[in-house]
């Protein structure tokens, strides 16, 4: 801010335009480095806390699942990773993510095997828990986060900044901080224990590649993301719509589509290579990836099916087969508008909205959704933070709130509070005026409703921790949380859909003007 105003304002004490990011006037490099190191520090601090299923035999939790996959990939041949064999009992945390996750587990297992062979030994390491093992496992998540998510985020922010032109360096630093310090992602990856940073980082890389007009790279990166977690499929309609829309505007649409398709197929072939020797083995892997036997929802996830099940007992009234159909149709209907909009008028901004809308549609309407899937809509929302700061804040808050019961089970309440506080502080850091204007809390009845909702959620937080639910309704509080969150999500997704279509109209008008 000060640098732009030139030499005359160097005197001290001209406090008007003070902002916290004053440190970073020198350049992007130092500001990005500071923010990244801080984000890393926060992750390391969270990683000291217990992981999911710590000290909870016989099945433990996600930590044991990931550790078990390392054990399996290290000690069995590639072809048997997804097959029930004497050394690979699929009913005990069988591998149910696509092959890239398996390769990642293999790479990490080599690291663990070098420093602490006991923690990945076949059979004997089941339920292994030790402080060294925990430290090493945490390090694997930290390193993946830095290598993939951090670098993708920095690349994205630089591109976003050069595309926007109008925003200042402080905005850029703030944008990066918002992406890297998202409390939900940190708590799930470094507290609960998962590797979402890899698939989300690859997706983020693909977005950055699209922003820099490298569509082929984007296809390859997104295919990798898909092959790391099938949940990345939530973004697929947006990618598909946007890329198709762009191809149609190309001089030679057919050639363009073929090129992109070849890259996608090539990436998939490369990753699935060890399983391509027979149709059976491919089907074997595929069947592991689609857990339809689990039912339409699990626990208390704040999506449409689970929330409406308070009134309509879906699971009792319909067969799984028909529920599958329902959820498929509902998801398609929900995501179609945003996909169509991208095919009609692909734009960078619209693409981010489309990602948000399609991932939200999946979260709300698709089959077998987990609480943690809220991380997927949060990614595009964090990328849109300069456009929609309030939306991002609101979504982060309720996304985090929707995972509150899960994080309570994992004994992560302390980092939950600390990270929420940290997020609010960083969000409200007194930065350049441009954004803070947008970030102002709305007035009038909107503010009133928001204040009321905040009050409700804080009361529920306390109730959940202090009171015991009545015996008749053991999941009463979970249901209340779910209801509140789901209502907010529905409002938000309606808003972003409208916003995306308005974008279409405004750009359309601009185009018409240009034509005239």
């Amino acid at each position: 801010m000060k640098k732009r105003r030139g030499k005359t304002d160097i005197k001290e004490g001209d406090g008007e335009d003070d902002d916290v990011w004053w440190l970073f006037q020198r350049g992007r490099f130092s500001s990005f480095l500071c923010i990244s190191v801080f984000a890393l520090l926060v992750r390391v601090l969270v990683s000291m806390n217990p992981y999911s299923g710590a000290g909870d035999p016989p099945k433990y939790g996600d930590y044991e699942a990931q550790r078990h996959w390392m054990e399996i990939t290290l000690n069995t041949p590639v072809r048997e990773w997804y097959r029930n064999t004497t050394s690979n009992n699929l009913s005990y945390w069988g591998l149910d993510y696509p092959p890239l996750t398996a390769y990642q587990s293999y790479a990490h297992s080599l690291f663990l095997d070098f420093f602490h062979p006991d923690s990945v030994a076949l059979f004997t390491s089941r339920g292994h828990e030790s402080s060294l093992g925990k430290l090493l496992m945490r390090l694997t998540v930290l390193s993946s986060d830095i290598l993939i998510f951090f670098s993708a985020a920095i690349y994205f922010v630089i591109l976003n900044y050069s595309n926007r032109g109008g925003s200042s360096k402080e905005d850029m630093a703030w944008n990066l901080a918002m992406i890297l310090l998202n409390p939900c992602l940190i708590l799930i990856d470094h507290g609960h224990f998962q590797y979402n940073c890899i698939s989300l980082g690859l997706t983020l890389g693909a977005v950055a590649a699209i922003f820099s007009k490298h569509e082929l790279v984007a296809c390859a990166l997104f295919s990798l993301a898909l092959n790391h977690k099938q949940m990345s499929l939530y973004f697929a309609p947006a990618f598909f719509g946007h890329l198709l829309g762009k191809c149609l505007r190309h001089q030679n649409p057919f050639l363009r589509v073929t090129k992109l398709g070849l890259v996608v197929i090539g990436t998939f072939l490369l990753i699935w290579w060890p399983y391509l020797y027979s149709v059976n083995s491919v089907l074997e892997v595929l069947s592991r990836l689609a857990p339809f036997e689990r039912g339409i929802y699990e626990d208390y996830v704040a999506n449409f099916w689970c929330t409406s099940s308070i009134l309509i007992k879906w699971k009792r009234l319909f067969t799984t087969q028909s529920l599958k159909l329902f959820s498929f149709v509902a998801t398609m209907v929900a995501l179609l508008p945003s996909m169509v909009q991208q095919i009609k008028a692909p734009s960078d901004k619209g693409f981010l909205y489309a990602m948000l809308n399609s991932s939200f549609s999946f979260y709300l309407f698709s089959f077998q959704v987990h609480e943690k899937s809220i991380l997927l809509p949060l990614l595009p929302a964090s990328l849109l933070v300069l456009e929609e700061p309030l939306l991002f804040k609101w979504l982060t808050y309720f996304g985090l709130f929707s995972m509150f019961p899960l994080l309570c089970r994992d004994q992560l309440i302390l980092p939950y509070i600390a990270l929420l506080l940290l997020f609010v502080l960083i969000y409200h850091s007194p930065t350049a005026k441009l954004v803070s204007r947008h970030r102002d809390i709305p007035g009038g009845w909107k503010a009133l409703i928001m204040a009321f909702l905040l009050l409700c959620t804080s009361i529920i937080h306390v109730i959940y921790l202090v009171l015991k639910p009545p015996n008749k309704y053991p999941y009463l509080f979970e249901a209340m949380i779910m209801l509140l969150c789901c209502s907010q999500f529905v409002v938000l997704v309606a808003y972003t859909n409208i916003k995306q279509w308005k974008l279409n109209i405004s750009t359309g008008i601009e185009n018409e003007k240009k034509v005239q």
Partner: protein
Amino acid sequence: MERVRLVDLFWFAGIATCIKLLLIPSYRSTDFEVHRHWLALTSSLPLSHWYSDETSPWTLDYPPLFAYFEQFLSFFAHFIDPKIVDLHEGLNYTADSVIYFQRLSVIVSDLCLYYGVYRLSRNLGFWRRKMLLVLILWSPALFIVDHMHFQYNGFLLGVLLISLSFLEEEKDLMGGFVFAILLCSKHLFAVAAPVYFVYLLRHYCGGGFVKGCGRFLMMGVAVGMVFIVAFGPFLYYGQIQQVISRMFPFGRGLCHAYWAPNFWVFYIILDKVIAFMLRKLGFNIKAPLASFTGGLVGDSSPFAVLPQVTPLVTAISVVVAMSPCLIKAWKEPRREHITRWIAYAYTCGFLFGWHVHEKASLHFVIPLAVVAVQSMEDAQHFFLLSIVSCYSMFPLLFEAKEYPIKVLLLLLHSLLMWAGFTSHFSKVKASKTSVLTRKQGEIKESRQGKYSDTAKEGVVVVGWVGMSYLLGLLVVELWGVILQPYILGDSLPFLPLMLVSIYCSLGIMYSWLWQVKWIIKYT
């Protein structure tokens, strides 16, 4: 404007609090149990037994005001979990309740630090104010010592900063009063008492004999009151002898088990080298009975050749080292130099004192942060010093779990300092040169270009000597963590710590010399 300052303070303190909350599950040293025991001690025993109780080896060795503070805390502790303050049942109690209570008590007591920094920074310009907040509120050493290792340094340093802020505002009476409170809370701060005395005598008690005497009396009453409140009850119970003996345990020896990076490290090394050489030359030199690496030292001399160092010797050397600033304070007691003088006094105490802890380097690094934002030279000096001081505290956290935390804390601190100092001082320099070029209006444009280029490159936070010294820290660390276990295996287990002490003491000695030079030259 007032609102902006408070918002800034709140923001920086808030971020620091988040980090502190996240640090709650981290490693805690025996000091945690020490303070828990003091809670139990002060809550369950009558005042007359506080300094004579021997239920736990961690006897009360802070002055009475701190004991009152613990008693105040123990009231809440009793409310939360009575077992915390149970003298016998509570020994080595490690339930969540006690951990959360004690950790949160440190976090809340840091409010005192925030207030001190707020008082010091409120009249500064916007860059200096924010930089000061970064340097003190986000100080990695405070995080490590208070919120991981466990102590109440932030609280006590806050009292010191409040006292300094009063002195800087020429409210000498309040300054002296607050310093007396500090002395009665932790007597290690007494090292700066001579400077306070000389400064207050010359600055406050000036202006004619009668007025001076009156003011001297007033100051005496203010300070005396604090001491009476603190020590009076113990005097009444006839415990004062016991209190003094607990507060000054000279039996502990010259150096702590891990040598603080000070002057005596060189003395010990010199002794060892001379003894080694004499033995080579054929003299019969007996190895000393007590050793420095073995922890507690008895009465026998730990030196083979050089004369024994007694508490008196250390006291004299501290006062001698302090004398330049005492003389300056006597000759020209100016309030803008007082923070620097106090910091210098603590530096001397650290370098030459008896049984110094590495944590004591906080006593001068934190006040020097106030000085660091004043000029580029100060900033350069502080950059090096604060990194060295923080690094010297690394051995406090020896578990693998905390390793990345301490490294990242120090890295972040160095980056923030570097970014803050360079961006500010390069601008200041650029403005100076641009004024210069504007004055010499005839100069060609190419020359102007050159000027601005040099202005951009001209700001060096750390020169090549300093940089290679800091890189040396990296080498020392790599040696201790990776190379030593591979090359030497389990032999010489004390070597890495010794290297850290020796290497850091070089940096602290440099800082001391720099400060002496500055004080002699400019104050």
